[in-house]
């Protein structure tokens, strides 16, 4: 893409604003929510949005706004764990494969290709079946799933860099391979890593909500945006707002991360 230097990086600005908004909401939710998130008032159930309940109530009569606020905690937590796991293992595996090349690279890449040919949601279901459900288990399972694609990106970054002059120079003065991988090459692909990380964050949110939607992700009473959606499905014709609130929240957070990653990419493209 070609951008004039003057053009503002709208992706970065809008994406950043959206994320900042939801991050603020998440931080607030640690100290304050309009109602107790788990307080059940069956008599008050399925209320449409009102001044008392801005986003209405769910089928237990719980306040949807409070639950969405707390739900962003889950979303960001799962996303963060997934990104940390994915980046950590992804850069080790991808870095070694890309730097060493040869048969090691071949085996690792075939392994990764095979994992990527496996329907991801099924792999997630199987991992969850083994390790159980819940926030941490879901995050770990999704982290494992995010690793291959990050490893791929890191590997191609290494392939591009490993024969460049600065690496050859480092090698010739006897710097150890591990040091070259992490201290010499890695800093040069940081920008790719950041982009990959924010894409993985968005992917993790989508995957978490899919798993929770299928009943296999985050479990009650922990609020999860995906589960709120699946709970709302049976009321979708009569009480559409019940589904809209969590659905739009997921969409906007994911959108925020996508725009952020596009913005970051533009930023690095422009620099180079």
């Amino acid at each position, binding site marked *: 893409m070609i951008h004039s230097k003057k053009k503002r990086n709208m992706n970065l600005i809008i994406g950043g604003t959206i994320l900042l908004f939801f991050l603020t909401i998440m931080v607030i939710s640690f100290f304050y929510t309009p109602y107790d998130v*788990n307080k*059940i008032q*069956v008599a008050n*159930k399925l209320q449409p949005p009102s001044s008392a309940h801005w986003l209405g109530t769910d089928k237990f009569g719980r306040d949807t706004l409070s639950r969405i606020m707390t739900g962003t905690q889950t979303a960001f937590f799962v996303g963060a764990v997934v990104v940390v796991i994915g980046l950590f293992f992804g850069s080790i595996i991808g870095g070694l494969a890309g730097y060493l090349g040869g048969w090691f690279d071949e085996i690792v890449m075939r392994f990764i290709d095979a994992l990527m040919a496996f329907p991801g949601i099924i792999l997630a279901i199987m991992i969850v*079946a083994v390790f159980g459900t819940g926030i941490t288990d879901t995050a770990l399972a999704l982290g494992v799933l995010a690793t291959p694609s990050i490893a791929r990106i890191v590997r191609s970054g290494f392939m591009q860099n490993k024969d460049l002059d600065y690496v050859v120079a480092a090698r010739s003065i006897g710097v150890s391979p591990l040091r070259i991988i992490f201290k010499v090459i890695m800093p040069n692909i940081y920008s790719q890593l950041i982009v990959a990380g924010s894409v993985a964050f968005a992917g993790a949110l989508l995957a978490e909500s899919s798993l929770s939607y299928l*009943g296999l992700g985050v479990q*009650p*009473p922990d609020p999860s945006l995906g589960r709120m959606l699946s709970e709302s499905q*049976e009321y*979708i014709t009569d009480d559409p707002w019940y589904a809209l609130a969590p659905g739009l929240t997921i969409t906007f957070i994911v959108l925020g991360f996508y725009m952020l990653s596009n913005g970051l990419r533009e930023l690095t493209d422009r620099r180079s």
Partner: protein
Amino acid sequence: MRKYVYMLLAIAAMTFLMAGCSGHSESQQSGKPKKDITVRMMADPDFLDPHKATASLTFQMMLNVFEGLVNPAPNGGIEPGVAKSYKMSEDGLTYTFKLRPGIKFHNGDPVTVQDVEYSFDRLTGKSTGQPLSSSLAAIIKSVTAPDDQTIVIKLKKPYSPFLTELTAVDAAILDKKNDAKQNTHPIGTGPFKFVEYKPENKLVLEKFDDYWKKGVPYLNKVTFSYQPDDDAAFMSLKSGNLDLTSVPAHKVDEIKNAFNIIPQNSNAVFLMGFNNAKKPFNDVRVRQAINDVVNKQDIIDAAFSGHGSKLGSHMSPAMGKYFDKSTVGDYQPNVKKAKQLLKAAGYSNGFSMTITVSSHSPVYSEAAQVIVEELKQIGIHAKINVIEWAKWLDDVYKQKDYEATIIDFTGKLSPFDTLSQYRSNDPENMMNFSDEKFDTLMSQILNESSEDKRVALYKQAQEELSQQAPAVFICDYQTEWALNKQFTGFTKYPIYYLDLAHIKPAK
């Protein structure tokens, strides 16, 4: 030019979208009464072979195909089936059955005493050594045929609920000649014959013209259409793709004018069971305290949209005369009393516990969420652990590795089977409950030949359960059936059985 391109695109997109809309044609507008019915199938049958099948949802469909020596009756008792009549000896050890003359299998074979012998042999594993029913194998001593119209079954010891175990649910009569194909192409004597089954798609039955009861069935064809999802089934019902289905309680108002709505007590017991062998639940005061704080109505409202009846013990009102109404009011929400009980048991500061529930239906975790909130009032901090059904069966049901769990037990014809799992030595005693008084009552029932006295004993047993509180007996949820107005004749049974033989065109 470009404007045209945009417009063309828009038009093309619209036509494409609309192409699928006109598809729905209502074919039943002709004057003839509708004689084919489409019924929702919520889950696949576990086995078509009735001797292997166990799931209640299987029998809900297949009781239209199979019959036992006796059949379930709408009021909860039994009525003659393959046997025209039956007689029990004074000592309760010998049962004599007379075969119904002229009765035929779906393939035209006459039902013979050899077929009955074959069926019981298969169930008790007499000749193979591998029984398919351990309960029948444990009570039946011999099955003989003195002549070609008579069957004599001898028991090892008196077993008063024996006749209720002879319906097709436990002991269907099968054609000996069909031995190799009982599971792929089942043949019975019921009002409908099996035509085809496609997994996760449909199961088709057709009218059996030679059915022994004259005049039934009224319908020509029954299609059970696989529809695991409540919402999708509801949409299908409204669009005319389904004629009979259960609908979520909160949707009833929307369709009550367009369909016949038939509420039915499911004869299920929805409960939160404790692991009675595990601390602190081995203390009856703790169990009673929890019973005192759980508001059953809240759970019925939250998980079943208010459509359920509160229970006090392990028996639903659907069981008629056996049901002990007095237990329902035994526990009323009373935080103060609950706190006292906990204090007496040494838990004045409460404790932490885990409620393990299965994910295969949302009602379990919904009920759990309500209970967790209510337990907070007496200082009990409960955590919900939702696991897969497969894991639940393994961990909770088989290994009994849990503290508390929420589950429902579907109805049985015999009140004895309904209560038997609370006996100390019962293999299905998943709650590790052990109470001497209850055990004595149950063995008294087995030997009691007077029906009236048995009813009294059943009621005592229910009261004992209520007092000992091995579980919080929450409710029997109602099933709301919606039937196309072109049909009538829905008959209710206290077990999972959709009697399609008696459903007929409305006019």
